């Protein structure tokens, strides 16, 4: 799949102070730069090198990804939520393209 389409899953509602799991999945070839095509030419590296998550504008999680990460990478992480708000997710490509998505959570 050529176009990066992210999927994010987290609970819609949580209690104050809850630790929740956030699961993310994005379609991406994660071309490692180690492979050659049928003509023997190296296929240039094209991976998502950085994953970042913010909550209400504050960074809560980030990960550097490397060429050995498989295609269509899945990343899950845990966060404690104290207030209602919006998670913002950003996947940064080698070429600088940033794919973004958001998800809301209500804290009762």
């Amino acid at each position, binding site marked *: *799949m*050529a176009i990066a*389409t992210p*999927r994010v*899953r987290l609970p819609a509602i949580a209690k104050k102070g809850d630790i929740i799991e956030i*699961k993310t*999945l*994005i*379609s991406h*070839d*994660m071309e490692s730069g180690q492979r050659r095509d049928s003509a023997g030419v190296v296929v240039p590296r094209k991976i998502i090198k950085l994953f970042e998550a913010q909550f209400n504008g504050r960074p809560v999680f980030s990960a550097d990804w490397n060429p050995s990460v*498989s*295609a*269509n990478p*899945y990343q*899950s992480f845990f966060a404690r939520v104290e207030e209602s708000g919006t998670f913002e997710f950003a996947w940064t490509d080698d070429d600088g393209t940033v794919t973004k998505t958001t998800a809301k959570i209500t804290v009762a």
Partner: protein
Amino acid sequence: MIRLLLAALLFASPALAQRSGYDDASVQTRAMQDDDSANPGFLWVRHGEELWSQPTGTAGKSCANCHNAPDTLRNVAARYPAWDATLARPITLVQRINRCRESHQGTTALAPDNDIMLALSALVGLQSRGTKIVVANDGPLAPFLADGARLFRQRQGQLNLSCANCHDDRAGQRLGGSIIPEGHANGYPQYRLEWQGLGSFNRRLRSCLIGVRAEPYGPASAEAVAIELYLMQRAGGLTVETPSVRP
């Protein structure tokens, strides 16, 4: 009496022994299939949901114009390949979608591993997840089924192996480091970690045939359809797992 018992046992044993590829996969791979947010096949399913309501072709119709919501196709994938009265031969689910595209939407047929076809067939397949596979085996399908069964046992390629040599006789044993599965076609299109992507039944069949150094069947060939028909009939009783995850 003993003969009768033995016959009953022989008849019943394939059904009893049926093992989905899921059962042979590692704990991690199974966990990936079980969790819809971790199963990468759902990237294609979501793409399929977008395509479902997009008009295409000269007729300007979308899938939704005729079928409404995708869940109106519930359980359909569990009975394919099915008989097509117009063509007077069995067709696969991919071919059924292509027939819709050509005759109702006025657009082109797609190869099974085209991303649009993968997305649509994953979406349609998902509507039957958990449904027991029941493919008709009588009437006009019988000769095609017999063809499939014959091809399954036909030795071929430089390695001179038949499908049955591995998937019937040596299922559960190892080929290199991997467990040989029984070869049930109950989860296509399927996300294979080896492929790093979703792939059709035809892609899997091609890999096997190339593996035994045989000439692969074309995706629309009578042989490929006959084998898919036979395999789905053989998998009868297992449930549809689309989009399955395999190593």
